[in-house]
């Protein structure tokens, strides 16, 4: 279960120290997309700390995180869970090397409610 190498890489990419977490759950309390996630922000932190990363990489939750950074903003311990999720996502993308979002697909996905920043960051992340 323990995957030290992977854990170290995730910590390096994210610059997050999950040991700072005091398990207050404010990240999950503040998460606007909580119900869509199999693993919630506080679980992410806990699972990375325990090296239990494969289930995270396989989970849909990775892609349901909105990267709104509410958890980063409100974490009293400055753990920054969203950065950790982002790092796991990057680990998956790097492993696959695929191109998930093409520029021509974007117009169809546009939505008035969707913040523009989300599209920009999604494009940056999911395309090569």
């Amino acid at each position, binding site marked *: 279960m323990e995957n030290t190498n992977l854990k170290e890489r995730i910590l390096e990419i994210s610059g997050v120290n999950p040991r*700072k977490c*005091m*398990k*207050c*759950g*404010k*990240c*999950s*309390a*503040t*998460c606007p997309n*909580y*119900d869509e996630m199999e693993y*919630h922000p*506080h*679980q992410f932190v806990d699972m990375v700390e325990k090296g239990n990363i494969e289930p995270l990489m396989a989970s849909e939750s990775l892609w349901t995180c909105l990267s709104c950074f*509410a958890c980063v903003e*409100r*974490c*009293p*311990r*400055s*753990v920054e869970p969203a950065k950790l999720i982002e790092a796991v996502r990057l680990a998956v993308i790097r492993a696959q090397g695929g191109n998930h979002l093409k520029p021509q697909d974007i117009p169809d996905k546009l939505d008035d409610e969707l913040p523009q920043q989300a599209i920009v960051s999604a494009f940056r992340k999911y395309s090569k």
Partner: protein
Amino acid sequence: MQRIGVFVCWCGSNIAGTVDVKQVAEMLKHEPGVVFSTDYQYMCSESGQNLIKDAIKEYDLTGVVVCSCSPRMHENTFRKAAASVGLNPYMVEIANIREQCSWIHKDMPVGTAKAVILGRAAVAKVHLNAPLTAGESPVAKRALVIGGGIAGIQTALDIAEAGFPVDIVEKSPTIGGKMAQLDKTFPTLDCAACILTPKMVEAAQQEKINIYAYSEVDSVKGFVGNFDVTIRRKARFVKEDLCTGCGLCTEKCPMKKVPNEFNCGMDNRSAIYIPFAQAVPKVATIDASYCIKKKTGKCGLCSTVCGVGAIDYDQKDEFIEQKYGAIVVATGFEPISVEKFDEFAYSQSPDVVTSLEYERLMNAAGPTSGTLLRPSDKQHPHTIVFVQCVGSRCDAKNEKGKQYCSKVCCMYTAKHAMLTREKYPDTDVYVFYIDVRTPGKNFDEFYRRAVEDYGVHYIKGMVGKVVPENGKLKVQASDLLANEQLHIDADMVVLAAAIEPDKSARPLATMLTASMDTNDFFTEAHPKLRPVESPTAGVFLSGMCQGPKDIPDTVSQASACAAKVIGLLSKDKLTGNPCVAHSDELLCNGCSSCEKVCPYGAITYADKEFRMPDRTTAVRRVAQVNPAVCQGCGACTVACPSGAMDLYGFSNQQIMAEVDAICK
């Protein structure tokens, strides 16, 4: 030339095992000035000490070198022995040939050679030793307590009980502090006013206690036993000796829209006011920033209705100078501002309150006369969410909060939750906690009662956001044990705000040259063994100013602090450490370098007249060290560019001589 005796100790086999003590004694005999040298099995024993005493008398020794264990161990023993036969104790030097020689070197020739060198260095130092006498300073038998909360009151009462006069300086118009604002106190639930107000009255009636309310410390000079303090008595515009506290003026005052601090601004008071019914001293105060007469010159209604003519619009600040032997800091705390935590919507809805505000809402003397009504529509709340650790236990990088645990929030939240459920059983009460910390007598039992007997819902998790919507507060929170996100429609949200030291603490610390930590709590002289003393001699710490604590802890610390003050004040004279700095006035050029590095403010400057070579006189500014304040660190001796500063017991020449002896 000194006549020096050298005494080499065997310490059984501790030293003699790896150092040839006979040879050390023999070698040191040939050092200049050494007239006697011997070795003995246990120098620290009665007979060893007698050996030293006899030799001092027989050989008329002026200096003694003991080659033995660390000076931290037996320097005092040998100094006392020397003093008992008339040799100045500061003429004794120790060469540490046990901890720093025999115990770490296995090889006899190596150990012996090093012991000889250490002995030589000590002999070289003794040559330059001078007899020292510890200075004495008188003790002013009066204590100053800064802050009139429960900590200050308790300390003052205990000191007064021992017969010493005490002055309490309190910046607000009445003593009582934060405890006066509390409703009930955990874990016994007795009412705060019922146990505090008798103490306030006792303080007012105690002959030895003098209360300077609505006053502040303006300046502090001097040192332990001899502080010169100036106290500013702020103008109340009411003659304290005439006012009877009848309150007629407060009723008639036309300016009634002043936020009432005592109720955390949740209701209004008049511009002339008495903070609360049990205030001590019970005297009215005019708030000049709201008073119509003070602002426009027209009105004067209070002066008209006052039957005793106590109103004085032209009153000025008054300054009192007083000498004190000891100063107690009891400046207390305040809750942090929770506006920064915008996720809790404190500034968006009046129904989001801090715990101290909730305390006032529950209090019979509060803005709602003790009926729990939510501030927005004065309706009875049915769902109340308590949020713990708001601003406590934050990471150092988090600029909004504090790193420490505020210690009292777990218990007062349990109290609030319990009292709410007791008075209004139809209310749903949720407490969101990270950890429930209840280390204290009857504390955990209290918390369990809140859960088991009163049915308070304790949920492990944190509130993420609060959104005011249609007269409700939408609370989004996590329940970590159920691994769920909760959405609660609450009527009120109560934030357990972290506490921080009172804002007046830092300027006061500068005045007192007392040290503070990064959170502005005063630091204690030793965190375990000297918890109520500041590292600055004569300054003592009482209550929250030193760190978060509840009422029982505060009162214990206040009494402990009083015991330390009484111990100091019952001395007639203080004996100092004679190893202090002194300046050579002929060399000093008055540059102030030494003053700047002195952590104790022991250095002052005086203009002195000097005779010049041409028989004229010139006035020069020279440094003077107060030996009662100087602790002998020596920072000034190095800072001094002209070499005028030196340290008794560790003089420049003495240390140079040691260097020379070692590097021979």
